[in-house]
């Protein structure tokens, strides 16, 4: 009796659940509109050009709505989840945010080999993306870096140009204001590196009380000359205005400052901090919307599409198999290879974020950093 009623109750749901995860092509029920969330600006344009427009050409009856809310995606997703009404279908977030969303149960865990297309060279999705899959919910898209740009017309530098990250901390040889991001991530690593800590010991050192003190002491040496930025557009603006002579920001922003706006600024690739950006699928989507998103995301993250994106913005594709396919900039016609953070010339020395470490220490470190700033 009991068993029978349960069978009747659950059969429908039991049949539906595995179907959602099955191969997404075929005659399945798919929603005909989806809301994608991204960062706006040149980055979102590159996504529209590289994946969304071609996808809509293949599926003319699908409507894609863009929402430029990635900056507050974590809080918005939590609010939507609590209200039980998730209106977003696919959200572009930083790798660190994807971990937080995954931990909070706000993003869907996926089986990468099943959901994502294999690489053009025949490799599995998990091998193709490799270490960039930092959490069970994360679908990597691009690798970008936070790195420094410097002005090339500073008289006080007597014709010297910085070629080492530690020149940022050298006020005698390279005087002038610098802009750094107003959060500990990146700054602490650079400070320790320039205080003589070996690259591989950075996070172990930061775990100790003395290590943190050391990093702050190093930052103290330039603190009076630092403008702290919060938005990615700040540093390019400050560099263009001559307000700062050195500034950290995302490499794509510097690319457009140098190549598109032709400002007297150069890139300092040394010790760039690699970071990853990608998609997450919100938890709890209805079946038809989930099918549509899975169909889109499989297409949008295949080898060719990720390589195409590099024609519109100077961020490296997250798939290893995409790298050989990167071509020229769609409008400027310059070869994009040398502008990629992943280019061998540029990536001689890079800091790779330790996401697990920052997920643990972020709150603590941020409180210390803010306390340090206000004193």
């Amino acid at each position, binding site marked *: 009796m*009991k*068993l029978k*009623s*349960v*069978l009747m*109750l*659950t059969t429908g*749901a*039991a049949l539906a*659940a595995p179907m959602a995860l099955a191969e997404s092509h075929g005659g399945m029920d798919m929603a005909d509109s989806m809301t994608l969330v991204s960062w706006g600006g040149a980055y979102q344009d590159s996504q529209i050009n590289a994946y969304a427009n071609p996808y809509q050409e293949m599926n003319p009856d699908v409507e894609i709505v863009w929402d430029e809310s990635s*900056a*507050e995606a*974590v*809080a918005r997703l*939590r609010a939507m989840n609590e209200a039980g009404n998730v209106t977003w279908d696919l959200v572009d977030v930083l790798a660190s945010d994807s971990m*937080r969303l*995954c*931990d*909070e*149960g706000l993003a869907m*865990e996926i089986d990468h080999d099943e959901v994502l297309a294999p690489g053009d060279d025949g490799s599995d999705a998990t091998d193709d993306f490799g270490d960039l899959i930092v959490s069970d919910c994360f679908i990597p898209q691009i690798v970008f870096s936070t790195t420094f740009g410097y002005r090339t017309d500073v008289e006080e530098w007597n014709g010297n140009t910085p070629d080492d990250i530690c020149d940022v901390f050298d006020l005698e040889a390279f005087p002038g*204001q610098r802009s750094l991001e*107003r959060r500990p991530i990146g700054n602490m690593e650079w400070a320790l590196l320039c205080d003589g800590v070996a690259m591989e010991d950075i996070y172990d050192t930061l775990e100790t009380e003395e290590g943190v003190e050391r990093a702050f002491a190093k930052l103290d040496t330039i603190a009076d000359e630092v*403008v*702290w930025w*919060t938005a990615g557009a700040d540093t390019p603006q*400050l560099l263009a*205005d*001559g*307000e700062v002579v050195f500034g950290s920001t995302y490499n794509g922003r510097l690319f457009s400052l140098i190549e598109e706006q032709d400002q007297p600024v150069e890139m300092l690739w040394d010790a760039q901090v690699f970071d990853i950006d990608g998609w997450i699928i919100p938890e709890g989507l209805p079946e038809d919307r989930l099918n549509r998103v899975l169909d889109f995301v499989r297409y949008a993250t295949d080898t060719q599409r990720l390589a195409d994106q590099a024609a519109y913005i100077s961020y490296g594709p997250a798939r290893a198999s995409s790298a050989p396919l990167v071509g020229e900039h769609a409008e400027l016609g310059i070869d994009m290879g040398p502008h990629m953070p992943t280019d061998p010339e540029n990536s001689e020395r890079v800091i790779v974020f330790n996401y*697990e470490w920052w*997920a*643990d*220490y*972020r*709150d*603590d470190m*941020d*409180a*210390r950093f*803010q*306390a*340090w*700033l*206000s004193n």
Partner: protein
Amino acid sequence: MTDNTAQTDNGPVLAADGRPLKASLRKALRAQKIRAMMLIAPLLLFIVVTFIAPIADMLFRSVENQIVGNTLPETTATLESWDFANGEPPDEAVFEALYYDMFLAAEARRHTRVGSRLNYEETGMSSLFRGTGRSLDDLGDDYFDVFEGVDPIWEEAGFWYDFMGAGDGDAEAGGLIDAQRDRLSALLDEPVAGDVGFVPDAEIAAILPRTADAYAAFAAYTALVDEDVVAEEEPWEAVFTALATDLRRDGAGEAIAAYSGDGAAELQAAYEARDQLPDISYTEFFIEEDEDWGSLDTWGTIHAYSPSFTPGYFLTAIDMRLTPEGISAQPENLQIYGTLFGRTLFMSMVIMGSCILLGYPIAFLLANLPMRTSNLLLILVLLPFWTSLLVRTSAWKVLLQQQGVINDLLVWIGLVADDNRLQLINNQTGTIIAMTHILLPFMILPLYSVMQTIPPSYMRAAKSLGATDWTAFWRVYFPNSVPGIGAGCILVFILSIGYYITPELVGGETGTFISNRIAYHISDSLNWGLAAALGSILLAVVLVLYWAYDKLVGIDNVKLG
């Protein structure tokens, strides 16, 4: 007062119909009151539903802490008798409870949430829970391999279902299932209902208590959350761990020998093979996964944050903290909130003061110039007011930066040396300048509306009585304009105390407000509890100041237009 119904003796005053006047009056007023209430009811309801209730809900988060108890119910209950001061990590019973709590939480993907929650208090908890959650299956797998080696039937879903449910008697331990249902509701934070389609047998539950419990948890989760059929699903790893634990329990042998229900032979065989089971305690398992499980601080934090309500967020908000040893001050290099609250109040006062200084003369001009000129001036005041806040703030950046318009101008006229340009932005000065400009209309408008109502004849009268211009202004005009200043001050102060976009953009490191930290905790760290606590304190400060203001100036003396 004369009233024809009044009586001169000391009985109650009666109305015309002979009832006491008081009661009659109250009745008449009551009808009026009800009518008035009905008229405002829609608005009141609207405000309660859309404004007061959400705010109350948000503020409630500042003390709410049910997530720890809901996710780890057995652990927190067992841990209650543990004493941090003993200096010893908790005993095996706590680790055993933790294993089953964590297992269910990991199945429901809730263990990382409690990890994030505890990470706010003790760095490292987040990865501790995330990492351990991944390897919980391993322990059960090891046991499973042994049972399967003894008899492959242990792998079969149907066997387990009959073994745990049928038994030979009709005594059923239905309470186990109800307990699991309640527990799931608490864990998932939403009511879980429905028929599990399985009832554990009381006899087997007495022989294998842990196993029955673990299987009931599995059954409830399978039926109610995964919506699968219990009898068709292979039990999860925790059930095998539980069986191993039960087999090794003292006195298990006699009970098993006496048992004759479904699966008695298989159970006896498994019991005899118990020496082949990997010999690992729960404590060893956890500490092997991560040595932090053996650390006092980990358990102290879980212990301190077990109760459903916590003062922890409020303590953090005032630079204190709740540690396993009790309440103590935050280490100096982590104290920021006191400074920020103080700075927010101080800078709001300064902004309010500069708004009065700048706004009063303009409002005076507006009120006293001929209509045509004053209208033009009023438009000049309102135009920036109608411009987007972000545009105005960005404009200030362009004006104030070191290579900006103002510095260029000062260098050009020679007031400032080129290599010593003024630092006007990314500090307190920048915030004060930009916010004074943005909030100025909120000072000017109420001042203007009050000043317009002061008859010019007052000043003329004062002067005709021999007052100088200054005396006439100070003794006659100014006191009449005080209600406008009061209104302007309240508006500007309360607005600026909660401002966050402008300080964020131009405040640099020394010009940010407490609201910037609240925004950080809402959108970046997701520590909504702390954000709610900071918000509650801010709200309380505003209410206290409002009360003080009412005592000093009197709220009746405020005219908002």
